[in-house]
Each structure stands twice: as structure tokens, then as C-alpha cells.
């Protein structure tokens, strides 16, 4: 083997890596779902991404409950911190885990992004 060959192998290796990343990079975020398609028990435990309008923000100590509505339905989303940056009728995007609470689905928020302030 020569130094130039080692160089070639290294570059081919990187190019294959870039190709793999191009293929995968679009599939890394959790899938976007309509709120009405979140149903128990099949949705329990999945990580999902939802977009919608805030219809209600309820603050408690160490806990914030944000109700999100899209064109198909409504779901409560729980954030385990005191949070005051979100207000009623903002548009937000959430990712998080779907869990069951009082026999209804809710989302435990992992990430929260404000898309449009009211």
C-alpha cells in the first residue's frame, strides 16, 4: 500500500459517510402527527411531533400544562417546570412522549418551539 492509496480509501470512506447522513438526516426528528391520530392504547409510549395553537396555559408550582389544538383535535401537554414564555393563541411545535393520564392521552414535552407569537 502507498500513502496515496491510504488517502483514497480515507476519502471514499468519508464520501460514503456523507451519503449515509444525507439519507438519514431527514428521518431523525420524530414524525409529525395529527392530534386526532393520537389514540390509546396504540400511541402510548411513542415519541411524536405536533404543531398547533395554544388554547390554554395552566401554571402550577413546578409544572405547566399547555393545551394544544390543531385542525383535528386537542391534547394537553405537560412541561415539568415553571414556564411563562408561552401564551394563549401562540402557534407552537412540540415533541415529546405520549403517555396515558386518567385514561386520556397527553404529551410529556421534550422540546418546545414557538412558531408564531400572537
Amino acid at each position, binding site marked *: 500500500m502507498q500513502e496515496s492509496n491510504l*488517502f483514497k480509501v*480515507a476519502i471514499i*470512506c468519508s464520501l460514503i*459517510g456523507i451519503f449515509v*447522513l444525507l439519507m438519514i438526516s*431527514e428521518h431523525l426528528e420524530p414524525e409529525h402527527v395529527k392530534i386526532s391520530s393520537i389514540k390509546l392504547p396504540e400511541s402510548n409510549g411513542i415519541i411524536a411531533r405536533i404543531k398547533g395553537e395554544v388554547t390554554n396555559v395552566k401554571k402550577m408550582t413546578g409544572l405547566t400544562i399547555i393545551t394544544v389544538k390543531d385542525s383535528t383535535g386537542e391534547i394537553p401537554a405537560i412541561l415539568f417546570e415553571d414556564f411563562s414564555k408561552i401564551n394563549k393563541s401562540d402557534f407552537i411545535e412540540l415533541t415529546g412522549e405520549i403517555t396515558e393520564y386518567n385514561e386520556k392521552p397527553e404529551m410529556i414535552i*421534550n422540546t418546545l418551539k414557538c412558531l408564531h407569537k400572537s
Partner: protein
Amino acid sequence: MFTQIIIAILIGTFLGTITGLIPGIHINLLALLILSFSPLALTITTPIILTVVIVAMAITHTFLDTIPSIFLGAPDPETALSVLPGHKMLLKGEGYSAVILTVMGSLSAIIISVALTPIILPIVEFLYPLIKTYISYILITASSFLILKEKKSKLWALMIFLMAGTLGIASLNIPTIRNPLFPLLSGLFGTSMLVISIKENTLIPKQNFNFPTIKKSKAYQAIAASFVSGSCCSFLPGLGPSQAAIIGQQMTKNIGDKGFLILIGALNTINMILSFIALYSLNTARNGAIVIITSILKSFSKNHLILYLGTALIVAGIATILAIYISKTFSKIIPKLNYKILCALIILLIAILVFILSGPLGFLVLIIATFVGLIPQIKSVGKNHLMGCLILPVILYFIL
């Protein structure tokens, strides 16, 4: 997303170059720093991107950490064994060639292990529960095997194993020492080696840039052996690449110093790739970098594994080219430097870092560990027995 990943890879490669080249600075340490900055970093990026930085850093590190172990004789625990054959080649003026051999090992290991991932996954899932049940017996057998294989003095090998083990148990159980592994491993494998370099008045000859020549059959044997022993040792706590290297060497016929360097390079990298696979299929963290990835990323899916393997491929290519240039630069600079002063400066750097990161008690651990680390050299016994510092605590943990 794609551009963010590429930027993350470049940042990680840069950081990994730093940790790889400075002896004693382990990726775990930098990964820990990244974790403490993560709340700030997460305001501009996502957890996935942040973990890509760590993955890129870890892979770059495994490619470049043989450079200080060969040129300075100051290895990380993973590369402790490459010191002897690598340093031997350095003293013959073949330092560049020694680095290239380890890089060839690392690069082939990445390509093969990524290609074999679909086969490795089910094997891992089958083997791991078995290994887990008998872990302490496997560790006792493996350690006894390594001690009995020792040619010079089996008694000293056992003594060193027990001494390092006792030191390990003590320092890992004193709650007031922060980051106890850092002074422990730096002392046993880093500063002790540097002290010897100073004492022996090493003179580094002018280095040549000949590309290494090795028989293809020996290279293939070295890589095959690294896969077999690497995949066994990767799932045993305490048994790292250094132990795997000894076991791997026993499996093959005589692969020589050059083959051994390929073996070390390959093992180091296989260990890292397998730890990603273990995280996905077994949900266990096999090293510090992975522990931190799991605490940033809450859930780990197949897509993440593919992302990490893709990242590993890109970084492997970049790190290979970096290693070629860096080892050439080192080859030009090192013979001109005052080697004694250089070694003394690195010891000082490690001592200061230990003091800052582990406190005064950690500093004490560093001093004791340095003395224990000197014994194998004085008695010309293998340094791998020093890994008793991790193996013995693990054995006791599982037995008691």
C-alpha cells in the same frame, strides 16, 4: 439538519484532535465539559447535534491517540501497549511509519465494523446475557490467563495486578475525589511512562517518512484477531483494548511488532463502534462518552445508530488524513526538541489538570499511581497488569 450535522462533525473532529494529541486528556473529560455546557448549547441546537459532536470527538480521538503514545511514550490506558513497539520504531527513525500502521488498523476497523453491523447486532443480543451472568468468572479467568502468560516474572505480574487493583478500589470508593479515574489512569499509564523517558535520557534520531511495509497475510491476521478479541472484551467492564490486544496476539501466529500496531489501532476503534451498538441493542453505556450521550439524548433509536455510524465513516476519513499530516509534522519537530523538557512539561500539565479536576486527594492518587506504574518498567513486566485497577473492583462488585 444536514448542514448542522456537518458543522457538528467538524467541531467534534477539532476537539478530538486536541484530546487525542495531549496525553492524559481523555475524551471522557471533554465530554463531561460538553455536558456541563449543554443547557447553553441546547438554546441554539438540538440534543442530536450535540451528541454528534461527542461521537465525532470520540472517533477522532481513537485515531490520533496513538500519536502521543508513540512520539512521547505517554499513552492513554487504551494505547498503553502500543508504546513498546511504537517507541521502538521511533528510536529507529520510523515514528511516522508506526503511526500509519495504527491508522491503517483503525480505518479498516471502522469500514469493516460498519459493514458488519447488521450481523453484529443479533450476535451481541445473544451473547451479552450469557456474558453478564458469568462476568466475574470470565474476568478472573482472563486476568489469570494474562498473568500466567507473563514470561519474566509471574509473581510480579500478580503483585502489580493486586496493587493496582487495591489502588483502584481505594480511589474509586473515596467520595471526596472528583473524577477519580483521571488521576488513577494518568498516573498508572501516563506520568510513569514520562518519568522513565526522562530518566533514560532518550535521544530521538532523525525520522524518515517511509511508508510502512507489512506482509498482507500478517495485516489480515491482525485485523481478524482484533475483531474476535475486541468484540469479546468490549462487553466486559474493565477489559479494555489493552487486554484485548494481548488476547488477540495469542490467537494469531507471530504477527510481529508491525502487526501488533495494526491490532492496537483496530481494537481501539472497534471498541468505540461496538459501544454504539451496545447502546442501541442492550441499552447499556460502555464508556464515559456514551454515558454522556445517554444523558443528553433521552431515547436512542435505529436512526440514531445509523447517524452515528455515518458520522464515524466521515470522521474516519478526515482523521486518517489528519494523522498522516500530524505524524509528519511531529517527525520533523520531535528530534529537534529537548525531549526531557518536553516530558517534564507534560507531567506538569497533567499534575495541574489533576489538581483542578480532582482536588488535592486526587493529586495524592496521581503520585501513588505514578509509582505503581513504574514497577512494570523496572521489573520488565507487561504494563497491561496495571488494568487490575479497574478489573479488580469490577470482580469484587459482582462477587460480593
